[in-house]
């Protein structure tokens, strides 16, 4: 792939000036290679579907289990319990159940398929610039580099920013590197195998809505499956055991719901607490803002009152995805050229860049 200097410069300008768009480059000279989308060259351990529209973690087995559990339990409920309950009690029951079910499914898919807030890795130029700054700060000693951290004061609290060796960036506050997905994620909460994705800044509200609505749905199905069994036992006067035999689906639903409700409701309660105090699971587990660490330790990100914290987490602005997975890769990314004869060197090595 050998390009003349002027052509490469023209492309270099286009790629730098062009605003974010997913249209391929307009230069007529690049007809060589077929255009690849950025998700195809994504460095993290993620799986992409629908040409980059859907993004999930590598291990998705447990997600399918979640989906199957929800679909089967709800399927049984609508098929076996709802006709009876609609006739005996009120047809509103299947309607509410239906709405809850659709909401649960929608939020689950939204949590699982969206970008949690992945931070793209540093470009080679950025990484080199940071390395240079760190070397200068360390006094240029070559051996045994000390751990790379930067301290910053946020609202009166000193926060340490760690350097991520994989992504070659200083992680923003509240970001963390997920070892399963091999990405730095903004406002990293946790990696949830049940939804098959990380939970971070961009999908936390969907995750919360999912577990909250799932709690209601679980309790709803539990309650009405038991109601079905009791009504059967009472109306047919055949005894409790016969009622169980008449409606085995209800028994299965009761069992599944009974075992799930503790963990799901517990999780909802825990995340409600986290949202109201504006903390992430990561911070809570580490006790970052716990008063046990010190008298003056407080959460610098909290807005002060529960209401604002909740509103900010659930109704705040939704930031866009930073990784632009459906954009086209602009190959021949410009590298720094040694200032001698203006010929651009592609794949400039560390030694060449240090000549600047």
């Amino acid at each position, binding site marked *: 792939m050998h390009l003349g200097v*002027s052509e490469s*410069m*023209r492309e*270099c*300008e286009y790629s*730098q*000036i062009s*605003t*974010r768009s997913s249209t391929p480059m307009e230069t007529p000279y690049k007809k060589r290679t077929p255009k690849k989308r950025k998700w195809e060259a994504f460095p993290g351990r993620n799986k992409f579907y629908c040409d980059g529209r859907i993004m999930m973690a590598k291990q998705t087995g447990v997600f399918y289990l979640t989906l199957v559990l929800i679909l089967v339990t709800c399927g049984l409920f609508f098929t076996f319990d709802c006709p009876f309950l609609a006739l005996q009690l009120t047809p509103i029951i299947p309607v509410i159940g239906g709405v809850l079910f*659709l*909401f649960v499914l*929608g939020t689950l898919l*939204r949590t699982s398929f969206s970008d949690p807030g992945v*931070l*793209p890795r*540093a*470009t080679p*130029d*950025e990484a080199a*610039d*940071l390395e240079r700054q760190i070397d200068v700060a360390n006094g240029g000693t070559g051996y045994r580099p000390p751990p790379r951290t930067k301290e*910053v*004061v*946020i*609202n009166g609290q000193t*926060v340490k*920013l760690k350097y991520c060796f994989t992504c070659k*960036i*200083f992680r*923003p*506050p*509240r970001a963390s590197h997920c070892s399963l997905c091999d990405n730095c994620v*903004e*406002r990293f909460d946790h990696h949830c195998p049940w939804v098959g994705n990380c939970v971070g800044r961009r999908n936390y509200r969907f995750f919360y*809505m999912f577990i909250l609505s799932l709690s209601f749905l679980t309790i709803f199905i539990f309650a009405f499956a038991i109601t079905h069994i009791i009504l059967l036992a009472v109306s047919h006067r055949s005894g409790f055991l016969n009622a169980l035999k008449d409606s085995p689906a209800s028994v299965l639903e009761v069992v599944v719901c009974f075992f799930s409700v503790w963990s799901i409701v517990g999780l909802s309660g825990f995340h409600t607490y986290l949202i109201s105090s504006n903390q992430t699971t990561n911070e809570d587990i580490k006790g970052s803002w716990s008063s046990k660490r010190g008298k003056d330790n407080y959460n*610098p*990100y909290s*807005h002060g009152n529960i209401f*604002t914290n909740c*509103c*900010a987490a*659930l*109704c*705040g*602005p*939704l*930031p*866009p995805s*930073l*990784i632009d997975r459906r954009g086209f890769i602009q190959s021949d990314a*410009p590298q*720094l*050229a040694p*200032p001698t004869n*203006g*010929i*651009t060197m592609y794949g400039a090595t560390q030694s060449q860049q240090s000549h*600047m």
Partner: protein
Amino acid sequence: MAETHSLQDMRQQAAIAAKVFIQRDYTNGTVCQFQTKFPSELETRIDKQQFEETVRTLNNLYAEAEKLGSQSYIEGCLACLTAYTVFLCMETHYEKILKKIAKYIQEQNDKIYAPRGLLLTDPIERGLRVIEVTIFEDRSLTR
């Protein structure tokens, strides 16, 4: 004796001399803000006030995008009620501001930075981590 460059000239002749990265400023939390400290490499190329003005305007635009106000709450609630399908037909507030930012950077490049042999890269192309300022070789010096 061309001491100022147009974008056209740069495209045809210029080589990249260096890149300066303006890092994020986290003193106000996780809101997207960039440091307004003037980098020393740009001292010979551009006026300090001009540069700080550009960064300050960008900071204001990003602050507006992430602001928690009645507009963002209404948008959030509406989105939740429509199961987020509303975003299939309309842009989020943040995306609208990003478009404004892209236009502003384009404008600044055309009017101020390109004639001085500099180029600003939209931070969104760098994951909102840095503002990348590319310094082009000043051909008028190599005579």
